[in-house]
Each structure stands twice: as C-alpha cells, then as structure tokens.
C-alpha cells in the first residue's frame, strides 16, 4: 500500500512575545521538505519612524541605537550622515576617523554575532558562539571606553562624535588589534574545513546573482552571490577613499559562502582600523553645531554599508527642529524577502541555518 502524504502548515515561532527576535515563519511542509514559506513579522514594531518625527535631530540618535541592536554604531553613523547632508554640516577630520574606527569595530562585532549564531543554529551548540562572544566582549569594552555604554551607544552626533576618545582607549585598541587576527585564525581552524559544517552548508539555499539583484539584496548576502557591491568602495563616505581594503566576494551564493565572507570581511575591517590608527591626527572631533538644529527645507538620503547591508535614512525637513519625515531603509527587512525563494525544496533543518546565514535582526526588520 503506498503511503500518502499531505502538505502540513506549521508555525515556527515566536515562542514568547517578550523574547528578542520574534519572527514567525508560516511553513508548508511535505514530510520534511519545504513547499512554501512566509515570514510574518511585525511583533517588534515600535514605530521608530513616527517617533523620530516628534524628536529633535539630536534625540533621534537614541532611537537609531535600538534599530539593529547588535550594530548600534553603524545605525548612528548612517543617521548622522543623513542629517549632516540635510543640514549642510561637515564633520572635522578626527571626528570622521573616530567614526570609521568605531563603525568598523561594530562591523566586526556584528559579524561575530552572525557567525556565532549561525553555528549555534547549525547545532554546534554554544562552543563557537562563546568564542565569538569572547571577542565581541572586548569590542564592547572598547565601546564602553569610548562612549560609556556597551549596546545602546549614542556615540555619534550630527557634526562628529560627542567627545574625543579617552587616553586609555588607544593602547586597548592596539592590544585588541594585535590579538584579533589570531582569534580569526582560530575560528578558521575550528570551522572552515570542518566536515560537518561544509556538508551542512555547501550548496544549500543557493541565491544566484540575478535573483539577488532583482530582490535588491545588499551586504554580505549579495557579495556572497558574487557581486562586489560595497558602498564603501562604490560611493565612499567619510574617509573610506583614503584607506585600502578589498571587497571579498563569494562564488556560489550558498550558506557556506555567506558564512565565509563574514570571516573575510572581519579581516578587511581590521585592515581599515589599522590604517585609520596610522592616519588619525589631532584636532577637534565635533563641528560647532547649535544644540537645536534647524536644517533648511529639503530632503536628504544618507546611506552606508552596514554590517547587514545598505542602511539608509531618508530625512525630510520642513525647517523645524524635528524631521518632518523619517524613513529607514533597513537591510534586514529586504534581505529577509529572499528567504522564501531560496528555501523552497530544502528541508526543515536547512531553514534555520539559512535564516542564520542571512543574518537578520528583528529590531531592524520591524523598526
């Protein structure tokens, strides 16, 4: 007698509304094979875009901390660049260098979280995650020296950074820079040739370059598909045209490439920080800006290459102290939209790994 199977719809998550990263996946299975999938989000919606319209240009910085809470520094940077463009403010050079150093440290920290949780989802329970968090902890210590907070940083201001780095920041940063390549070697030794990891991720959930372009995917997910699109190279902001770095690209666009590209990008980030330490000179860190900024009537779109992709802020000014419209182009939301197409035909266990390899952050998806 032949066994008859029917499609079954299963809701995966959210476990509890107070957990972080509340994403619900409505998946239709045939046995273990995914037939259809739909991400349902909005559980973490806080209305950041509307809240930003009621706050002054400085106060909005505290809102941007809470979008992508594992990469607050780059959120600050993107918003601050958009506001500077809108108000026609030029940050001093030392301020820009400090912003780049902080943003690249944040990129390393975010990629460490992405790598650690991808492997945690793969079943390598806690060991690589703890190794990654050990180094992330040191970056957070550096942030604590810079701005007194570890996660919700509010470090950057319109026209620079809020204050110069303390004396003990530079030796600590140099020590971190000396140690970090060894840690990265350790991850590579632990992970990149690991047969279990390779078998589970290579050739799984392939996103080809055409599809990635059509879905306007950005960041490591796009570069893993083989397109060297990096805003730091293509549209250099701040001082990125003065530093040398490579844009690592993948070949296949599978889960393994998305994992490997993040390790390579961390090395490039360290290269950028090293050059910034050499190039940074004395001077002011903050332009003289009134505490209540009233930009001229107009609009501006500022974008950066965040750890997860192109992060953009669109600001419309009506000449008052608060933005008239505050729109966020968040990479996590747009990268999440390809999840259905690359998952169909794969199995349940691959779904969690692919979700980890796309590296979404629900704070940014739902805003």
């Amino acid at each position, binding site marked *: 007698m032949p066994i008859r199977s029917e499609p079954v719809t299963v809701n995966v998550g959210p476990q509890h509304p107070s957990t972080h990263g509340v994403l619900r996946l409505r998946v239709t299975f045939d046995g273990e094979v995914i037939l259809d999938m739909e991400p349902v989000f909005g559980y973490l919606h806080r209305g950041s875009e509307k809240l930003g319209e009621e*706050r002054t240009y*400085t*106060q909005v*910085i*505290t*809102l941007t*901390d809470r979008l992508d809470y594992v990469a607050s520094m780059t959120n600050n940077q993107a918003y601050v660049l958009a506001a500077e463009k809108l108000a026609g403010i030029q940050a001093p050079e030392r301020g820009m260098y400090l912003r780049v150093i902080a943003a690249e440290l944040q990129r390393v920290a975010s990629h460490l979280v992405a790598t650690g949780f991808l492997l945690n989802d793969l079943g390598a329970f806690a*060991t690589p995650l703890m*190794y990654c968090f*050990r180094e992330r*902890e040191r970056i957070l*210590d550096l942030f*604590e*020296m*810079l*701005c*007194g*907070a570890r996660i*919700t940083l*509010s470090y950057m201001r319109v026209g620079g950074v*809020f*204050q110069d780095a*303390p004396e003990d920041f530079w030796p600590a940063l140099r020590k971190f820079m000396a140690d970090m390549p060894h840690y990265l070697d*350790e991850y590579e*030794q*632990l*992970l*990149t*040739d*690991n*047969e*279990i*990891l*390779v078998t589970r991720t290579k050739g799984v959930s392939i996103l080809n370059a055409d599809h990635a372009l059509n879905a306007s995917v950005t960041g490591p997910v796009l570069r893993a598909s083989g397109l060297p699109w990096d805003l730091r190279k293509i549209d250099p902001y701040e001082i990125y045209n003065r530093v040398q770095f490579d844009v690592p690209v993948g070949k296949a666009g599978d889960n393994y490439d998305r994992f490997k590209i993040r390790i390579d990008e961390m090395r490039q980030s360290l290269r950028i920080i090293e050059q910034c330490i050499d190039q940074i000179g004395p001077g002011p860190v903050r332009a003289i800006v009134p*505490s209540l900024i009233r930009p001229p009537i107009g609009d501006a779109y500022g974008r950066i290459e965040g750890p997860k992709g192109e992060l953009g802020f669109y600001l419309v000014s009506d000449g008052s102290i608060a933005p008239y419209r505050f729109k966020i182009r968040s990479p996590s939301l747009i990268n999440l939209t390809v999840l259905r197409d690359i998952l169909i035909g794969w199995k349940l266990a691959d779904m969690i790994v692919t979700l980890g390899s796309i590296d979404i952050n629900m704070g940014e998806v739902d805003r």
Partner: protein
Amino acid sequence: MLGLGIVNGLIVTMKNFFRKPFTISYPEQRVLQHPRFRGEEFTWYEERCTACASCAKFCPLGIIRIVTHPSGETPTEGDSYAIDAFDIDIGRCMFCGLCVEACPYDALFMGSGFEEAKPSRRNLVITVDHLRAADKRPSTWFRPQLEAQGYDPHKGTEVTWRDAGREHFLYHVPQRPEQESSTATEEGKP
C-alpha cells in the same frame, strides 16, 4: 582526508580548554566599569543648578520633572529659582546622557553604579531628596575636566561641587545660605 577538519577543530577546543577562563562569577567578583560608564544614580550638584530645565527639555523621553518657584533671595548672585521637585524616573530612563550634555552649568552628571533594583516601579523615581543625599561619585561622561584629573568614580573620593566644574570655582560666587560656611570662606576668597 575525511575527519581532518574535525581533528583540527578539536585542537582549538583543547587549546581553549587550558586557557584561563574569560568569564567571572558576578556577585562575588566584579568588573569595574570604565570611568566614562553611563550609570544610574545621577549625581547632581544643587549649588550649580539654576533650575533652567535644559536637561528636561533635552531628554528624549521627557522623564525629568522640574518644579520651581522664584526664591527672590539673592537674585544678583544668580539665585533666582528655588527647586521644589527634581524627579528623574530612571525606570524609563535609557541612560543616553543627553541631559548631562545639555546642562550648561555642569550641575548634572551621570552616575557610576548599575545595580539599582527596587521592588516597585514607583521607587525607581529619583527625587530631589535622593539626589541631595546621594554619593557624589559622578561618571566622567561628557565631563573632560574630570577626565583630565584622571578621576575614577570607583577609586577616588567624592567630588565636591567646586571640583566638578568646567570653570575654576573662583569665578563663581561661593557662599550660599545652606552651604557649610567654613569651607566656603576659606576656599572661596577671590
């Protein structure tokens, strides 16, 4: 060769097995925060505060409540308002530090602690009496004059309002009715 990657990985795990632990067991051991740490238990110097409410206006959440009345005591010395209430609801505070940045007289400082747990949300409101009585161990966040002294809130002594300012205390009028007069007269002579 199959399995070589796993053996290679196990070498890393074994190396880490013999490393010193990175974590500490928290309640017994503590990591001291950097002096710039934006902690709770705000430090407030009443002698410096003019009740201008810049901090309340700059707070993104609007959780600072200041109630004043004209004091009319010594208006020539800049003492024109008396403070009835200075409530900071740290149950809703996100410790962004914008109030400290906004303060034009360097009267408000971030604190250095992080262990303010209360059984009720109502008790999380810091009142003016609490602020007056609290330890004056300010964070050096946005206060370069403290940072230049190498001040560390976890090690140093308490900072009086004279030592905390951006300007030298001689430029301020020192005596105030409620101040202890002995230190004020010997230090405050121009």
